[in-house]
């Protein structure tokens, strides 16, 4: 990145004023002063207050992170600053002063001037934030033109190419004519970062800029973003749900909860010495933190009476699992392979080895985590183990029965021993069935008991997952994501299986809820002596749950071993890269 923004702008004399402007500001005067900002959303049930009086400052060149769970109001704050709320949203009070001008009450024409030019914006999901019907070049040129960076066609094009190059797209000239769907997620996010920084703004708002990307890509993109903003002295407002990521990147941290700021201050100070009960709880539940504690020596004082994960219990379990190693495995996968044929444009198809010759064993009562990034084949492997996909070759032994060659009726019998919990808590429950019917379905299909005994079992299961029995008569849309995932777990347990396959079962949940569900899973494992196959992309979570780990890359298991081995002494470069990419891994966390 040798191109400095100043040389970039020298091509167009008419724009240099703008750039120098951003470098000559008083570093001790806040760039943005937000005071008592309140935002409401009109819904069918009336006005919902999303922000209830939020105040903070951003100084030139500094990086501020807002951390919070979904619904905390962090994204609303980001959109509120540039007055880009959804149609039903409205600023109901307070002010957003940007260089002295109140954007909350500014005219549209004034906002147009500020957006893009003074305040850049990098959105969350790279897949949906580029218009699919226009070429990437068009969309960059548009930004260049709108902010007056160049006027004649040639200059606009030159500047657009430069923007993309700065954002890290090496072959920008060729890429200009391509469409968003021809770009990978990481590439698109680079384009969006390029657009956000095109006019060399004084402030860049990045709303969860990397949550939709794989961890390794995430790290590269964030590093790049950090380099660019530092180089230009651009202030950065980073919105994230990931405490570790925020602490790693920002000097100042703002923790939001239910539309309010609960704690704010220097990042490290907050992480090491949180004051507010919510922040304490958040830090206690963050899996990347918990992983530190397990490998560390702090097991004795597990903080707070309602701390997220009962680490002592987990540690004890690990010991037990280790003792059990010698026991015969419940699940054994041998040379499992799945080949799909991918249709190519020219009437031909190409084989894709989604799962390539993998083998693993899971001893009874323990957890094997199958870890990998998107496209690694981990979910396909899980589906084959569940009997939902037929393997191309290889064997899956479950208590001695080989699933690969099993007949329909054999498979049906085996299903009683093995049940899944899927990722999407909103998609895994049939919206038209009551919770009771959903949990009771496995019993009904396998003709277990009569109606009365099934009802009793449903109540028992709800109790096991800590949901009130009244829920049985309700429908999925009345429950939150975490509660739905409890229902999915109850359904999985209905037939008293030995093995539960958890396919990204906690990935969609907020940190605190995630911690609760992980705790529940740990409790159930020790109570019922369950064996878990835990599929995930999140290594931080793996640290908390896994006894053994198998790392997958492009269909192959590249490394496997006990959790301790992998985390303390990873052998392959890929695993090391994955471990390094865990946000916040290198930070000293405080005891809570």
């Amino acid at each position: 990145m040798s191109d400095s923004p100043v040389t970039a702008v020298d091509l167009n004399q008419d724009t240099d004023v703008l750039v120098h402007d951003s470098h000559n500001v008083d570093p001790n005067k806040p760039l943005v002063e937000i005071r008592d900002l309140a935002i409401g959303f009109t819904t069918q049930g009336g006005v919902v207050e999303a922000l209830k009086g939020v105040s903070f400052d951003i100084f030139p060149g500094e990086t501020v992170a807002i951390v919070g769970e979904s619904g905390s109001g962090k994204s609303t704050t980001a959109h509120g600053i540039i007055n880009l709320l959804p149609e039903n949203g409205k600023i109901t009070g307070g002010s957003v002063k940007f260089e002295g001008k109140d954007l909350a009450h500014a005219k549209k024409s004034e906002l147009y001037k500020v957006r893009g030019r003074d305040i850049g914006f990098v959105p969350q999901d790279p897949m949906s934030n580029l218009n699919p019907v226009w070429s990437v070049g068009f969309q960059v040129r548009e930004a260049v033109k709108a902010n007056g960076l160049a006027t004649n066609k040639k200059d606009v094009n030159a500047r657009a190419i430069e923007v993309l190059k700065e954002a890290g797209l090496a072959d920008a000239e060729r890429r200009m004519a391509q469409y968003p769907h021809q770009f990978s997620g990481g590439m698109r996010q680079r384009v969006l970062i390029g657009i956000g920084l095109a006019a060399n703004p004084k402030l860049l708002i990045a709303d969860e800029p990397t949550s939709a990307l794989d961890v390794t890509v995430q790290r590269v993109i964030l590093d790049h973003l950090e380099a660019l903003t530092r180089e230009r002295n651009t202030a950065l407002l980073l919105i994230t749900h990931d405490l570790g990521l925020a602490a790693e990147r920002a000097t100042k941290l703002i923790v939001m909860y239910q539309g309010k700021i609960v704690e704010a201050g220097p990042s490290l100070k907050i992480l090491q010495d949180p004051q507010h009960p919510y922040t304490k709880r958040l830090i206690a539940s963050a899996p990347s933190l918990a992983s530190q504690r397990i490998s560390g020596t702090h097991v004795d004082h597990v903080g707070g009476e309602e701390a997220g994960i009962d680490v002592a219990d987990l540690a004890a379990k690990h010991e037990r699992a280790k003792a059990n190693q010698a026991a015969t495995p419940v699940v054994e996968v041998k040379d499992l392979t799945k080949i799909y044929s991918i249709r190519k444009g020219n009437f031909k198809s190409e084989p894709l080895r989604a799962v390539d010759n993998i083998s693993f064993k899971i001893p009874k009562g323990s957890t094997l985590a199958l870890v990998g990034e998107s496209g690694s084949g981990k979910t396909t492997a899980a589906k084959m183990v569940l009997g939902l996909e037929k393997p191309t070759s290889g064997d899956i032994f479950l208590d001695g029965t080989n699933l690969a060659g099993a007949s329909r009726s054999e498979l049906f019998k085996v299903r009683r021993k093995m049940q899944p919990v899927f990722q999407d808590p909103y998609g895994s429950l049939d919206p038209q069935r009551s919770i009771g019917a959903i949990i009771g379905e496995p019993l009904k299909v396998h003709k277990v008991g009569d109606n009365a005994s099934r009802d009793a079992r449903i109540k028992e299961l709800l109790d096991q997952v800590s949901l009130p029995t009244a829920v049985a008569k309700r429908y999925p849309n009345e429950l939150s994501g975490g509660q739905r995932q409890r229902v999915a777990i109850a359904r999985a347990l209905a037939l008293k299986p030995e093995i539960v396959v958890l396919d990204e079962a906690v990935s969609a949940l907020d940190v605190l809820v995630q911690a609760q569900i992980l705790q529940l899973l740990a409790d159930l494992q020790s109570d019922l002596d369950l064996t878990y196959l835990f599929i995930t992309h999140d290594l931080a979570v793996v640290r908390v749950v896994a006894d053994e780990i198998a790392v997958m890359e492009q269909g192959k298991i590249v490394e496997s071993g006990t959790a301790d081995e992998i985390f303390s002494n990873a052998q392959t470069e890929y695993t090391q890269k994955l471990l390094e990419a865990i946000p916040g891994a290198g930070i000293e966390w405080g005891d809570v």
Partner: protein
Amino acid sequence: MLTYILRRVLQAIPVFFGTTFLIYFMVFAMPGDPIAGLFGDKTPNPAVADALRAQFNLDQPFIMQYLLYMKDFFTGNLGVTFSGQQVSDVLARAFPVTLKLVLMAVVLEFILSVVIGLISGLRKGKFFDNISLVVALVLSSVPVFVAMFVAQYFVGIKWGLAPVTVGADTTWGAMFLPAAVIALTVYVTGMRLMRGSVIESRQADYVRTAYAKGLTHKRIVPVHIARNSLIPVITNTAASFGALIAGTTVTEGIFNIPGIGQVLYQAITQSEVPTVVTFVTILTVIYVIVNILVDLLYAVLDPRIRYV
């Protein structure tokens, strides 16, 4: 893209034979003597009946009949109408008229869909949106022939603004009224598509990003909202082009427009079943071809299909 085209055209082949076979089957495999059926309510004239037997190869086994019929169809030997005219001549004369009428109707439909749909979508839930919905629903419930009568009665007879029937004068102006009535009875689908699409794109992430880039509302509406919403509307309009060609029977009958529809209209009302069958087959083939073109148009408009 080339593969897409090829695949689409290949898919159309079974459809083409399937449709023609189905029509043929409906006529000649129905219970009873097909010739008697072809004469409808009339008593068959022995000489004409024999000629028909020869024309449709009724002495051959059924599948051969169909194949010979298709051979005739492809070589342009479409037979004669009851009045003794060559069907191919009638077609050459009538088709351009129908095409003109439908083209005009489709253009009007498109304009109505886009303009009203865009305004409704941008003003969701406001007065204009509600009124346009009510008007559209009422218009779409009126059967075409009733709408034609109403237009004829008021515009033609009462106000004298347009000729009551078109007749031999098939200029654009003379056919405007029937074209407009067709457009008014069919634009609802396109309008609702446009409206829904506009509302969806308005809330799309890429539109928010466009605002964040510093673009103005004035630029975003045409470039990022309307452009994206146009794809479904254009394909819908193109699809209605095929449906309208096939459906001009009533319009051309009532307005006495000398197009294919009118030929069919007269054949139907005078129970000339062989002519009915021939023209229904022709219209179906046109419909199939237009549908292929619509799919190809879709590929041209959407870069996600254009560049795989």
